[in-house]
Structures are given as structure tokens and as C-alpha cells.
């Protein structure tokens, strides 16, 4: 296989860039021009999902939150591997099934490790 690319092939990418930058620039400037300017205390406040903001974002918090969050990400991402496997389940056959069992059992080992180490204890 020989791939010959000419500069014209990159035109879609260039258009993509222009659209992306254009969108950002438009939304930033046009909203300033079009929107009415009513400055009140609530309007200028930090938006925090509708809940009243508490304080500065950089406040110390318990490391346990961080640990739980990291572990959540780990076991959440694991499920992503199952989607392509489930779609191709028939094609992959028994080998694929055994490989998935191996993968899940390794994750299980990790899970046992986490529990026995007390990473999920909340005191």
C-alpha cells in the first residue's frame, strides 16, 4: 500500500479548525454584545449547580474522598472493556469468554486487596 496525500486532503481538517475557533470566538463576543447587562449580587456570584456557593474552591478536604473517587474511576472504566467484548461475544467465542473471566478475576483480586487493606472504611 502506498499512501499519497496531497495538501488538498487536509481541507476538511482546516474547515474543522475554522469552525471550532469561530464557534468559541462567536459565543464569547456575541453574548457580550447581545445580552442585557444587569449586575446584581446573585448574577455575579459563582455558579455552582444552583446551590449557594460555600467558599473558595481550594479548601482542604479529607483524603478519603480522593481515594474513593480514584477507586470509582478504576472500577468504572473496567466496564468500558465489557462493551466491545459483549458486542463481539459470539465471534470471540470460548477464548474470548475465558479471557474476560481472567480479566474480571484479576480485577476481583484488586477488589479483595482494597477491601482487606481497609481503603473503603469510612471512620
Amino acid at each position, binding site marked *: *500500500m*502506498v*499512501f499519497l*496525500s496531497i495538501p488538498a486532503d487536509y481541507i476538511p481538517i482546516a474547515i474543522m479548525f475554522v469552525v471550532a475557533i469561530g464557534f468559541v470566538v462567536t459565543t464569547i463576543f456575541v453574548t457580550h454584545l447581545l445580552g442585557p447587562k444587569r449586575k446584581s449580587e446573585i448574577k455575579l456570584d459563582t455558579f455552582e449547580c444552583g446551590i449557594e456557593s460555600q467558599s473558595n474552591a481550594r479548601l482542604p478536604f479529607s483524603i478519603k474522598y480522593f481515594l474513593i473517587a480514584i477507586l470509582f474511576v478504576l472500577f468504572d472504566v473496567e466496564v468500558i472493556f465489557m462493551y466491545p467484548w459483549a458486542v463481539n461475544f459470539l465471534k470471540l467465542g470460548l477464548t474470548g469468554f475465558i479471557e474476560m473471566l481472567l480479566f474480571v478475576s*484479576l480485577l476481583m*483480586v484488586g477488589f*479483595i*486487596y482494597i477491601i*482487606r*487493606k481497609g481503603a473503603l472504611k469510612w471512620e
Partner: protein
Amino acid sequence: MNTIVILSVTGIAAMMSDVFKLKKALFGLSLLGLLIALVFSVYDWGQYATYFNQMVLTDNYAVVFTTMLIGITFLWFLMSKDFFSSHSSASEHYALILFSLTGGVMMTNFSDLTILFLGLEILSIALYILAGSDKGNLFSNEASLKYFMIGSFATGFLLFGIALIYGATSSFNLQEISAYVQQHNGSLPMYFYAGILMILTGLTFKVSAVPFHFWAPDVYDGSPTLVTTYMLSVVKMAAFAALYRLFIYCFAPVYEFWIPVFAIMSAVTMLLGNITAVYQKSLKRMLAYSSIAHAGYMLMALASPGGTSRSALMFYLLAYAISTLGVFNVLYQVHKVTGREEIKSVKGLFRKNPFAAIMLTLCMLSMAGIPPVAGFFGKYYMFVSTLNGGLTWLVLIAVLSSLIGVYFYFKVIIAAFQEPELENTAYYRQPSDLTVLYICGILSLLLGILPQFVAGLL
């Protein structure tokens, strides 16, 4: 492939041993796992087998380097028995070392750029944590963070390079890339060469070659001494095995392009490493700079590929790793007793333990490259191979910088034979604490007397 499986299972077992209250069995278990892996690795000799859809290729080159990696790690385990057992998280540290060894083995067996990337990451991520395993020490924290930041940056380069190579050749497989490059040599796009340079950058970061060495002294100096030992011996060996394998198996058809890069890098690395090492007062930092210098000598194998460069690189790495283990065994014991790591803190070693001083001398001579020890033949093979490659100027620079090296290596030898500065210099608590030094000294001598047995393997 068996080796990779056994090592990862041993790693997982080591990790779980704490959970199941089997901490006492941890050390024996790790050693047993390493021994089994070693046997399986040697058993693969003479075979040419691919696994996982041609992603892993076990040939003699891979077998030799895998065996060396596991053997050196075995010695490392012997000398660090008490280090991790004093920590509360000993089992994690053992597991991390075993995992990083698995990554190293993957880096020597790869036949696919994705496996190279995977192996490098498994090797590195474990080490980022290990570098900071002395949690109370600020320098250890600094080393860990620095290593992590710069290592990730280097990995980014490597990945971008792999992506560009894939873009140019539409394959990750070494054989396919090589065949494609052979076929289309001369009409390859510019970004293929950019990809080679980026991969080169990413991997030479890991072997701490100038100009990508700035992280190395601080990381090697700040990490716990035994982790530094592991980095200098096993990690350097794995990274060089991967670098050489990649460029010889894959990019050999365009060697005119990358040879000058390696030649210049090699010359600058050994000069800078050796000259900076002269000014160090701390033994650990001096050895860190000397490891940069040794990376320069090893790069000579890539500056003149083909011929005997393969066995020269192998022999050099082996000689270097063995002498590093020996010297660091002394450094670790000295540090444990006196809490100091300067060159002058080995003073009085001969008075306390003459045999240990002689063994240390052998290891230091091996690093300096003086007969009759292994390091001399490492340098000899390397210089001969480079001369055959036609790079006389590089050999001249190498000889010159070796002469500089002799100066600071002899500072340590002289210190070992001087009168002790402090009264209480018991260099070891038990006689077995310096076993690895004795093994390494004798191995250096044996390799120096009978080099052809090992050098003839590849």
C-alpha cells in the same frame, strides 16, 4: 511469554501476601518466583516463537536480556532483604519491583510498538512510586515527583513518535514496519523521520542520555539507595535492550539517518557524565553521574550497529550492572550505619574488612574499565565494534573520557584503603550483609578472565 506470566503472578502474590497475613513468606515467595521465571527464561533459548498475535517475539536476543534482568533482580533482592521488611508497606514495595521487572521483560521481548509502550509504562509507573517510597524524606518526594513529571513527558514523546510511525507505515509490528521501510526507502514521508526522532527522544530520556539527562542526578540521588540501585542496573538494562532492539529490528534500513544522532549523543553523554562526576563529594551522586557516562558508552553500540555491537552492548550492560550492585551494596551498608553517603565515609573499610575492600576495588576497577575485570572487556568489545563501524573519533573521545573516569573511581578505592575517620565504622551488622558484594566482585573477576563465554552468546 511464560516468564512474563510467572513474574506478574509472583507480583500479584506478593501484593496479596500482606492481605492474607503471609508477610513472613513474602521474601521466599518472591525469590522462588524469580527462580522459576529464570528457569523458564533459560528454557526458551534457541527458540524463535511469537505470542499474542505476533506482539511478543522470544528470540535469543530476548532470552539473554530477560535472563540477565531476572538474575540481576535476584541479586538485588538478596541485598535488600532488610530494607523493605522494616517498612509497613513492604509487600507493596516487593510487588512494585516485581511488576516493574515484568515491564522490563516485556520491553526486551516486544515485537510490537504497543507492547514496547505498555512495558515501558509498567516499568516506569512502578518506579515513580518506589522513588518516593521513603515518605518522610523530602528528597525522596522530590525525586518521585520529578521522575513522574519528566517521565510522563518523555512517554508523550514516545507515543507521538509511535503514532507518526503508524501513520507512515500503517503498522505497529516491527517486522512489517521494517519490510515497509525497506520497500519504500527514499520515498518515505517526512513525518516518518520525525517519528523516529520522537521515539529516540522518548527512549533516550529513560536511559538518561545527554541532553535528556537533567532529571537523572536528582532522581538517583533522592530515591532510597536500593531503589537507585534497581534503576541503575535493571531499568537501564531494560531500556537499552528495548532501544537497541527497536532500532536494529525496525529502523535498520534507514540507519544513515539515525547513526549520527546516536554518535553525537554518545560523545556528549560520556564527556559530560565523566567531567561532572569528578566534582561530586557524595558517592551516590558521583555514581549517578557515572551512570550517565556509562549510558554514553552504551550508546556507542547504536552509533555503530551491526557486527559485534550486539554482544558488546550485552556484555557492557552485564558488567556495569554487576559492578553497580556491588558498589551500592557497600554504599547501602555504610549509609545504614553512619547515615552518610560521601566518598570519604568508606574510609577504613580495609581495616575493618579486607576482603570487602578488595571486592569493592574489583567492582570499581570494573566500572573504570581496567583489566582484569569485566568492565575492561565491556569497553574493549565496545571500542572494537565502534572502530569496525568506522567511528574512530568517537573511540578517541571514549578513551579520553575513560581516563577522566579512572580519576574519580580511584578516589573511592583510595578512600577504602585509608585509615578510618570515625571510630565507630562497623560496616555491616551481620557477615551476610555484604554477600552480594562478594558475589558481584567474584562475578566481575570471572567475566574478566573468561569473557568469551558470555560474549559469545549473542
